């Protein structure tokens, strides 16, 4: 008798389990039954180990549960931006926490963001916020050269990103995959800052110098620290991690001389997605993230971000904002150049 009921038992069992699968686990069960604005969906490109504790604290302080989608290192930022585009007809993301700026500007240009009024906005330099409130920048990182001090003598220290194309370092310099993340943004900024022709020439010298293209900025920093590369272009958070582990590395802020191009500073950016399901909670999260406390935490934390908030401690462990010469770049123009730059980088470096 029992045997004849096996399919029914298994079917009901499977269905029950599937229904269990639909139940939100304990942490977020309250969020589901709570009012809509008690939840905020955030797509964050900042590395999970840095962003998750902050989002958890926001949830603890405000009672608004965060539902994050984190990015993967190999498709950083671009993957999330394209996800927002794919969901444009039916958005489910409230806040886009980008760890750079260009893809935020591109989403704005495509009409996929909506303005919001963040109360903390006035504490940030105008350069790092949108006048109409479409996006807010905070907690910057610099694009730096991480140099292995055992392979590169003090008198040989690279001073410019152009040094990645010097024949003496042929095959011993590296960059991350230039299609995603801050490396893609850097290439686009070069297209905007130098002009497409000169930027292409620069990339060509890198290519001819057999520059090593690796999966991410972290891998770049690790390869330099291990002596596999003499130096590489990376982000300050990845570089400082190696330096603080007492590896034989040194951080160089490239092109910081008088006549130099300047070091590229890329702020994190926050934006509310157009048609966000939880717009009020989104603004609360943005206000929280723009606070001096969060900037201070990001500066003091392992990622050692460079604070931009007027009241935040001005010095990060990496550098003081006043000490470096920032690259003068029109981010809006760089955002426009992004597809052209990405296409060229793809053809040059991804064959």
């Amino acid at each position, binding site marked *: 008798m029992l045997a004849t009921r096996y399919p029914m038992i298994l079917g009901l069992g499977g269905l029950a389990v599937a229904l269990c699968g639909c139940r939100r686990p304990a942490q977020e069960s309250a969020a589901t039954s709570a009012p809509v604005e008690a939840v905020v969906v955030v797509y964050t490109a900042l590395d999970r180990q840095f962003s998750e504790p902050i989002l958890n604290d926001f949830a603890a302080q405000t009672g608004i549960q965060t539902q994050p989608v984190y990015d*993967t290192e190999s498709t950083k930022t671009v993957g999330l931006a394209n996800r927002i585009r794919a969901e444009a007809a039916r958005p489910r993301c409230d806040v886009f926490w980008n760890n750079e700026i260009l893809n935020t500007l591109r989403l704005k240009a495509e009409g996929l963001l909506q303005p919001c009024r963040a109360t903390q906005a006035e504490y940030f330099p105008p350069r790092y916020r949108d006048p109409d409130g479409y996006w807010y920048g905070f907690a910057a990182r610099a694009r730096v050269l991480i140099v292995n001090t055992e392979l590169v003598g003090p008198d040989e220290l690279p001073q410019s990103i152009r040094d990645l194309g010097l024949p003496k370092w042929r095959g011993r310099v590296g960059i991350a995959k230039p299609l995603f993340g801050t490396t893609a943004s850097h290439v686009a900024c070069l297209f905007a800052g130098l002009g497409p022709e000169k930027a292409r020439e620069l990339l060509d010298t890198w290519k001819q110098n057999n520059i090593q293209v690796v999966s991410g900025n972290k891998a770049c920093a690790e390869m330099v620290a291990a002596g596999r590369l003499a130096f590489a272009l990376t982000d300050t958070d990845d570089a400082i991690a190696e330096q603080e582990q007492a590896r034989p590395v040194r951080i160089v802020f490239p092109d910081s001389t008088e006549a130099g191009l300047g070091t590229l500073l890329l702020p994190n950016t926050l934006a509310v997605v157009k048609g966000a399901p939880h717009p009020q909670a989104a603004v609360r999260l943005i206000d929280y993230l723009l606070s001096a406390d969060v900037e201070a935490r990001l500066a003091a934390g392992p990622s050692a971000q460079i604070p931009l908030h007027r009241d935040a401690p001005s010095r990060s462990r990496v550098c003081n904002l006043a000490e470096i010469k920032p690259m003068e770049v029109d981010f809006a123009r760089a955002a426009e150049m992004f597809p052209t730059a990405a296409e060229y980088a793809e053809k040059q470096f991804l064959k």
Partner: protein
Amino acid sequence: MEPRSVHRRARDWLAAGVAAAHGFVLLAVVAVPLQAIGRALAALLVRPPEAPSPIDIDPGRWAVLLANTLIVCGVAIVTATLFGLILGILIARTDMPLRAGFAKAAALGACVPMYVTAVFFFSLVPAWRVQGSALACGLFYGLMCAPLSIVVLTAAFRAADRELEDLARLDADPRWVLFRVTLAQAKWAIAAQAVLVFLLVGTDFTIADILFVRTFAEEVYTQYALHRSPDAPVLVALPLLATFVMALTVILRRYRLFGEHSPAEFGRGPRTLALGRWRPAVTVAALLGFVALAGPLAVAVLRRIDSPGKFLATAGALGRELAISTTGAIAGASLVVLFGVGLAWSAVRAGRRRWLVWAAVVLLLALPAPVVGIGLIRLLNQPGLLGRLYDSPVTMVLGYLVRFVALGILLLVPSIQRVPRETELAARMDGSDWLAVQRHVYWPAVLGDAAVAWLVVAMLCFGEVGATVLLAPPGWTPASVRAFTLIHFGVYQDLAVLALASLGCIILPWLLLMYLLRRRLAALWSEG
């Protein structure tokens, strides 16, 4: 109308409904990739002259992708096959001591999710050391697939014809018999194992992505992240898909798997070959090989963990991801097996319709994982009910169904074949409809095998990354996706803990699997 007639009619409707549900599931599952492929081809072929091509066909790049895919898959196949042949013969055909332990260890290794194995490997050899190396990538994949090859080839060697070997041994020495009879009989199993490794490696992008080795599957994932249109990645996947479909078709046709024939009896193999004076040396070598591989890997992972207290604290923090993975795996495996039995029946005994199931199985097995994700996103990311489904974790479970229903069918086909057709005919003559035949004839007969299939599929769902990384909705990150995110930064404490905790989650179903297979496994080393 008489109550009996009403009851009969209700049963007829129910039977028709359940049968239709099976057909619907098969069509829906196949529709996921087909609609994505159809849209991509339409975008390529049916477009205004001024519209740009959705894909940039650069011969140089395609050559690199092809070369890398072939190197990675080739090295993986050679590595896994070597391990499979040597240990398969030792376990299945010799009197080597500890064969039971080796067989169980291989079964455990085959069940461990790829990301867990990757964490162990990358603890020992940091990923950046082998960045861009297709050879290293293939070697990693080969070592990961080696346990599966050992299991498959052990079974194949046990299924060899005992009488034929006994006859051959009357005229020839054991080595000649081994090479000319045993291996010759197992050649199609070796080929099938190679195709299995080819499929697993060729459709996966995780290790290739971490090592930045540009294979077709990695390119599908990269193109999806890079471009707004999902057409480009699907078009990139088509050559790979066509290759896999051809390879699978050859193997499945050779085996006539979907026809009416008696499957090989697992565990009723030929006599054990005596190792003689080499027995201690071979045993020590096998043990040393195992310890030399597993020992440093385990030590390397454990060194990443500061203290037992921190392990527990980190494991607690990762509990949510593990719970999501476990629940999703249970739901996915239940769906696969629930429909898998009926579909396996269709594959064996549904007349001409079985070729539809055959075609669906080949297509689904050959799909690169990201195409499953892209297909589901294109299907579900719409306003209305489908959109609500897309926002829920059910999407991940549907992804598991699409990814593994073909495997579930393949695992259940031999069980269906073992049920005598006469039993079904007798039930039919007694007036049983399709549903009643399934309930009273097939399900009771295949229940044990269904449980085995359920466990295998559940463990595969638990470790799935390729489709899940695209499908996981906000706030529902499973352990596999978390590990994939973390592994790019190197193996630190949280990733090491996640890998060990995932391994812990696999141990229980593995023990259950060993319990269910105890008689068949015992037959491996008790005979001869």
